[in-house]
């Protein structure tokens, strides 16, 4: 009889300790993903983790599921082929903010537009941590990074608004602090047919946090709580206060038909050929 190992059925415990810095929330996100998979009883061999490049792109090395670790920014493009090659698979793309939205921005908007049945989990720590703390497309305006010592001159993306506009079926934002909510959103995203995106605001105690958030790593985790507000709470804020906060919660939850469903409806499989290889 199969033993239910819980999240350890998916998590490669013998690869511990995690390579991420002390105080980084990536381990918390990974735990939430593996617990969600366990709760949903999705067998590890029906899951493919597709990672990009960067700190969060290292996550595949801690997974016991199928995994793909490719090139910078392309986790969704590889994931698109993985999903279409075997539509029964649960494909989860793990990308950082720079990976998903700068070098991979084109793939991101088109994956959302196609509404392909992939779950993207973006660990947004507001900078390129792996390469030394340079500014990314989500770094808030005027923040200090190693490539913006005088402050970033570019405004950052709202990842959730972008996902919604492009066509994603499920869009949610939470943080590495909100552990219960994080697991709940990832679970909902995994169940959603079509493109789902969970943005997880994360700490980077080594780079962005050290330069922009006062205090130690515990303070940085508390900062995640302080800068966020629920949808209901957001509505009650004065207009002037709204821009100080990031809204957490399920921001989009809709049922647009996913890419493959539409494609199959328009392109029904023909009769088997002589070789009988169609499947």
């Amino acid at each position: 009889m199969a033993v239910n190992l819980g999240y350890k059925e998916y998590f490669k415990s013998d690869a511990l300790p995690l390579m991420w810095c002390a105080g980084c929330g990536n381990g918390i996100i990974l735990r939430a993903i593996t617990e969600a998979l366990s709760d949903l009883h999705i067998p590890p061999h029906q899951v493919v983790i597709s990672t990009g490049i960067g700190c969060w792109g290292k996550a595949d090395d801690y997974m016991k599921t199928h995994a793909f670790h490719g090139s910078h920014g392309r986790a969704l493009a590889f994931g698109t082929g993985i999903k279409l090659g075997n539509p029964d698979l649960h494909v989860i793309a793990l990308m950082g903010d720079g990976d998903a939205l700068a070098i991979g921005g084109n793939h991101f908007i088109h994956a959302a537009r196609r509404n392909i049945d992939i779950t993207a989990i973006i660990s947004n720590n507001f900078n390129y941590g792996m390469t030394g703390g340079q500014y990314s497309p989500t770094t808030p305006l005027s923040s200090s990074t190693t490539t913006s010592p005088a402050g970033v001159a570019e405004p950052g993306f709202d990842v959730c608004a972008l996902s919604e506009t492009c066509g994603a079926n499920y869009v949610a934002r939470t943080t590495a602090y909100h552990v219960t909510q994080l697991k709940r959103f990832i679970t909902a995203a995994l169940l959603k047919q079509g493109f789902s995106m969970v943005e997880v605001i994360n700490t980077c105690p080594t780079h962005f946090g050290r330069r922009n958030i006062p205090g130690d790593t515990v303070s940085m985790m508390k900062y995640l709580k302080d800068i966020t507000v629920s949808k209901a709470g957001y509505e009650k804020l004065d207009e002037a206060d709204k821009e100080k906060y990031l809204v957490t919660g399920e921001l989009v939850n809709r049922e647009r038909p996913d890419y493959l469903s539409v494609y199959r409806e328009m392109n029904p499989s023909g009769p088997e050929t002589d070789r009988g290889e169609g499947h």
Partner: protein
Amino acid sequence: MSRPEGIQLMEGNHACAWGAIDAGARFFAGYPITPSSEIAEVCARELPAYGGIFIQMEDEIGSIAAIIGASLSGKKSFTATSGPGFSLMQENLGVGIYQEVPCVIVDIQRVGPATGLATQPAQADVMQARWGTHGDHSIIALSPATVQEMYYLTIRAFNLSERFRTPVIILGDQVIGQTYENIKLPDPSSLDIIERIKPFVSPEDYFPYQPDKNGVPPMAAYGDRHIVHASSTCHDETGYSNFKTQTNRALLTRLKDKIYNYTDEIVDVEHFGPDHAEVTLISYGASSRVCKYVVGEAEKEGIRVNLLRLISIWPFPDRIVREALGKTGAVVVAEMNQGQLIGEVNRVNATNTPVYLASGIDGALIDPDIIMAAIREALK
């Protein structure tokens, strides 16, 4: 439209698509680019009837990424492009080589660099095919010279990619891609089709990058109980990251040896014309067709010329070219570029045989006069 029966007047790009379908390709991802787009169009129209999927990606970077992903999910996959798109594919081509992913990339070469002459032929991606992606690596590339050969070489490209677990490049050119010629598609059941070797151990004992005795690891698919960890980072036989220097050395060595130790299995050439000649032409693809004409024209002038046509380009057929250099008075390399494969000919020239270049860079099929002029130069 169903599969063409009997003798057909068909474009090279269409023949490529049918070759892929007959080889078992069931996934195509691509981005429109002249002069290769008809391959995508045929796949969009035909693949669904075979249970396959066509997708037009947002760019060529995504196209090659998608075919690598689909191949790892168990589908024979390919893409088609031309110079600018081929350049965009180079980074992920390295991912495919490193992760040992069978797939086929068709490059219908046009004049470059940059946008160049977008509708005109060239053979100037020969070295890009060899060295375009960064880092040490091996590559297999084939060069068709007729529409019928485009069909068979596409099948062979898939067979080689499955046999060696590696991306294979078809170096076509605008002439072959967009020329209409008579072709007859064979009965698919008459074809020898090679499939990747599946694991023969239990899931618990499976390591996705543990090679068989020929250096090629048996390949499970995503979704199988045999877990696959495919990484673009240096990895050991488990597929997981491993940063030891000896792991890197062992991996790079195996990736080279699994192809180069079997060069004779890959190499394919055609000898045309008299056995012994004053001048030997070495050429490939569309240029080699002009060379065949020139062999006849030279004979009329009393000059004995023969042709060594390279059907496979990479790995370079060192031994065969060295032998050809050793038994001729001079060699003329005819190619539609400023001299790319001629460098390889010179590399293996152990006999110091004079080697001349017939360079066709007019944005048109190489002119026979250019080749004749090189022959006359060689005979001076």
